[in-house]
């Protein structure tokens, strides 16, 4: 058993086992991660809220239950950091926005209920781009989260706080949400594992909506095994989310040791275009070689509509967002501005409450849905979305998994793209198509730049083929040591 000083380096699998077996108390685990956070969080700003008392109270309750002889759940005593977009009863839920600055959720999201039932310790609320709109975590109204590999750089986004919490080992696990790459991209930029689950795999109930037809909750971890552990807890049908799929939840851990012998891997040529940084390209090509060396077959495939991913995504996502964010109106529970009449109550509350990026997307979506423009924009985008889905269907007829880069480039300096909308939007070019198609995809640590910035490789698989992703990632992890490296923080 390692010392308490190194406890934060242990895997979630080991921590849960040790806690359930009574070898470690949930309290000692919580204290170790709180101590770790106290030491590194000030330089990283991953959390919007981390209430040590609430963390310890949960840990103590878990210990008390074990002391009474109860069998603990699969995440016994394991801290899980939560993106501040996911409702947790009696905890703040800001979505990174001024408009929800003082809002406290009166109910638990489905995934939070699952975590509680699994005896996890809810470990603070992580920073994010406002309402998940951004790719750097810099559009948060409250703080700028730094990349632990280089605090002068952004961690990616929008689930940047969760990625950093795990990368800096302030929590062994975290939950994020994806709409167009918001888990995979920060996972890649921070050197951790991040999974965008199949649309419908995890209930969205309790996750504040950005774009309903694209949003999914997913896990962050430092290994494929830990990722599988958290996925197994949160996946499954929930009758409160009509888009939640009635699909059986497989034993994800069982897929980890299956290897990639004979696995058919497709390499989509559109994922290696001119916009991809040479170091990223080289890293991904090396990863493909590694997988081939492990017995996988590779072949070139084409996803011809990839180039339309960004325009389609920004039409669909912003259209839905313009409607989803209408509830933050200053009337009911959001921050209300002083106003002489109703119209000004709306315009001032929303004008003051939302940040620039959110307003930009609301306006874009409102425009796309407007009379006279609907057919040309929203409807057309949905038609092209179907073509993108068919690209994947065709590719997956011949291969089991697709491999490519996650982000075209490694983490850039803070402020480098946040004010350049197009540059920021293009960072999602290789991730948005998975959301538009509703398939599952994973980011897995695959190497570093010369300047020691992490680079992830993206694995994509058909709907509900998460076991294929985990199996591939686990085989790659076993053959490499990228995921064992730790950031300077």
């Amino acid at each position, binding site marked *: 058993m390692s010392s308490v000083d190194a406890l934060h380096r242990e895997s979630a699998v080991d921590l849960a086992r040790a806690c359930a077996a009574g070898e470690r108390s949930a309290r000692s685990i919580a204290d170790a991660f709180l101590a770790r956070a106290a030491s590194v969080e000030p330089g990283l700003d991953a959390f919007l809220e981390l209430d040590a008392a609430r963390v310890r109270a949960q840990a103590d309750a878990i210990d008390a239950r074990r002391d009474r002889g109860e069998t603990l759940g699969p995440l016994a005593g394991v801290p899980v950091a939560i993106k501040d977009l*996911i*409702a947790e009863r009696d905890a703040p*839920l800001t*979505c990174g926005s001024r408009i*929800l600055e003082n*809002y406290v*959720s*009166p*109910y638990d*999201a489905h995934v939070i209920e699952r975590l509680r039932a699994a005896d996890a310790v809810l470990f603070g609320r992580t920073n994010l781009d406002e309402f998940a709109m951004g790719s750097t975590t810099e559009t948060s109204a409250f703080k700028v989260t730094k990349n632990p590999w280089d605090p002068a750089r952004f961690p990616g986004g929008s689930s940047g706080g969760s990625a950093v919490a795990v990368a800096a080992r302030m929590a062994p696990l975290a939950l994020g949400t994806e709409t167009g790459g918001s888990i995979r991209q920060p996972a890649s930029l921070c050197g951790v594992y991040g999974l965008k689950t199949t649309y419908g795999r995890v209930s*969205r*109930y*309790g*996750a*504040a*909506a950005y*774009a*309903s*037809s694209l949003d999914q909750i997913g896990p962050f971890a430092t290994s494929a095994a830990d990722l599988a552990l958290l996925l197994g807890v949160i996946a499954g049908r929930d*009758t*409160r*989310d*009509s*888009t939640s799929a009635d699909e059986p939840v497989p034993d994800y851990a069982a897929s980890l040791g299956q290897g990639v012998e004979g696995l058919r891997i497709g390499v989509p040529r559109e994922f290696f275009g001119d916009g991809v940084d040479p170091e990223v390209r080289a890293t991904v090509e090396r990863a493909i070689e590694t997988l081939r060396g492990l017995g996988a077959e590779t072949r070139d495939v084409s996803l011809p509509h990839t180039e339309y991913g960004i325009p389609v995504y920004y039409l669909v996502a912003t*259209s*839905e967002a*313009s*409607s989803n*964010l*209408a*509830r933050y*109106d200053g*009337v*009911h*529970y959001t921050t209300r501005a002083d106003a002489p009449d*109703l119209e000004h109550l*709306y315009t001032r509350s929303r004008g003051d409450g939302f940040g620039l990026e959110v307003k930009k997307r609301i306006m874009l979506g*409102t425009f796309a*849905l*407007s*009379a006279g423009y*609907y057919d040309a924009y*929203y409807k057309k985008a949905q038609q092209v979305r179907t073509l993108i889905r068919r690209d994947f269907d065709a590719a997956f007829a011949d291969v089991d998994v697709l491999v490519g880069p996650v982000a075209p480039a490694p983490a850039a300096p803070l402020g480098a793209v946040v004010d350049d909308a197009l540059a920021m939007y293009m960072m999602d070019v290789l991730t948005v198509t998975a959301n538009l198609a509703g398939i599952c995809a994973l980011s897995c640590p695959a190497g570093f730049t010369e300047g020691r910035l992490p680079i992830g490789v993206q694995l994509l698989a058909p709907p509900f083929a998460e076991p294929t992703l985990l199996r591939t990632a686990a085989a790659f992890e076993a053959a490499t040591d990228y995921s064992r490296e730790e950031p300077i923080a």
Partner: protein
Amino acid sequence: MSAWETIIGLEVHVQLDTATKLFCRCAYEYGGQPNTQTCPVCLALPGALPVLNREALRLGIRTALAVGADVATHTKFDRKNYFYPDLPKGYQISQFDEPFCSGGAITIEFKDGSTKRIGITRIHLEEDAGKSTHRDTGGSVVDLNRCGVPLLEIVSEPDMRSPEEAYRYLTALKLTLRYIGVSDCDMEKGSLRCDANVSVRPRGQEAFGTKVEIKNLNSFRNVQRALEFEVARHTAALEHGSEEIVQQTRLFDATTGETRPMRSKEQAHDYRYFPEPDVPPVTIAGDEVEAIGATLPELPRAKVDRLATAHGLPRYDGWVLAEEPSVADYFEEAVAADAANDPKAVSNWVTNEVKRVLNEGTHTIDAFPIPSGALSGLIAMQRDGAVSATQAKEVFQGMLETGDDAPTVAKARGLEQLSDTDALETAVRAAIDACPKAVADVRAGKEKAKGAIVGHVMKQTRGKANPGVVQQLIDRVLAE
């Protein structure tokens, strides 16, 4: 015939009688404490998601079948986006281009028995908004109890040609909806609401005139009044150029009986409809529709047709009885209880006395103190001359109060009619002796004078004498 033709179409919103709301599992009862019948979903809290209440769709299908509409095999929901304080999501989940049913009709019937078919364009499901109350002291308050309650929007074709037809359409629609048990249709509680579209054009012209929508109509009578006001306004404008009719939404003021335009700002809406991504499209199986159809009761017009043909009733009686299916059932049970009774006589009893009592509100037909068989017994007593018409009403009252059958009440209250010839003959002879002038008049051919003699008999018998028997006895004695 007027030179002008009125075109009216109605949009009716009906609140469905489901146990829970359309997209969450909150129960709703009218009149609850404000904001107590809510949950994260209908409050639109961050992260909450709608889940369709399939029972609401089933009630919708039931309605569709009752009006002969085509039920779609595939339907979807859409978001209608607008900001208003009683709409916490900032959008209403409704149905835009793929409603769950289309077509169908309501047949209205006029006093002379003629009928007219009023087409139904479509029926769709949507959620209700909350209720804003603007205080006289300034400021507004919002009650979200009603928010999310399932509504059917029933849109008619522009088939009505007069405010009276609109009134009859509403009455017939409401009766159908109540028959099939989908809604109580109580306008006072807001469970039925109506907006009217009206235009006027020169008779013979094909193009419609300029259309006006009227809102704030809180009773069927007010729908008719508002339409009458608008038709007069449009006609005057067309005839005298008194004003220009512009396409607009107007509010009806029940106090003045007039309409006035809504502020134009409230009318300029682009609802930005798009498919609701949180509620997947719905498939409606043919056998589900069939199963719902199999549970439909006899509908009002079919019932009236049957009452008229099976029992020989005037259609007017049929409609009065059919206003409440259970009243019609009561009538039919009473008729069945004694084949010797005239169904029209039974109908008179039910439509007059029984309905009078029901309208007083202290009794319901389902727990009526006089069982249908007992009413039948009373009618038989009257038929057989055991009680007079006046006595029968007293007996009825007694039965209502005691729950006893007609003979028991009649006996207890001494309300039996004297039909015994021997007993009455003595009284008749005494009356003839006491009324020499009347006797002389009758003998002189003044039949009316007989009334005085009958009156005398009645006085002697304290009203119990059977007037028919008395008449016969007078004739016989005078002929001696």
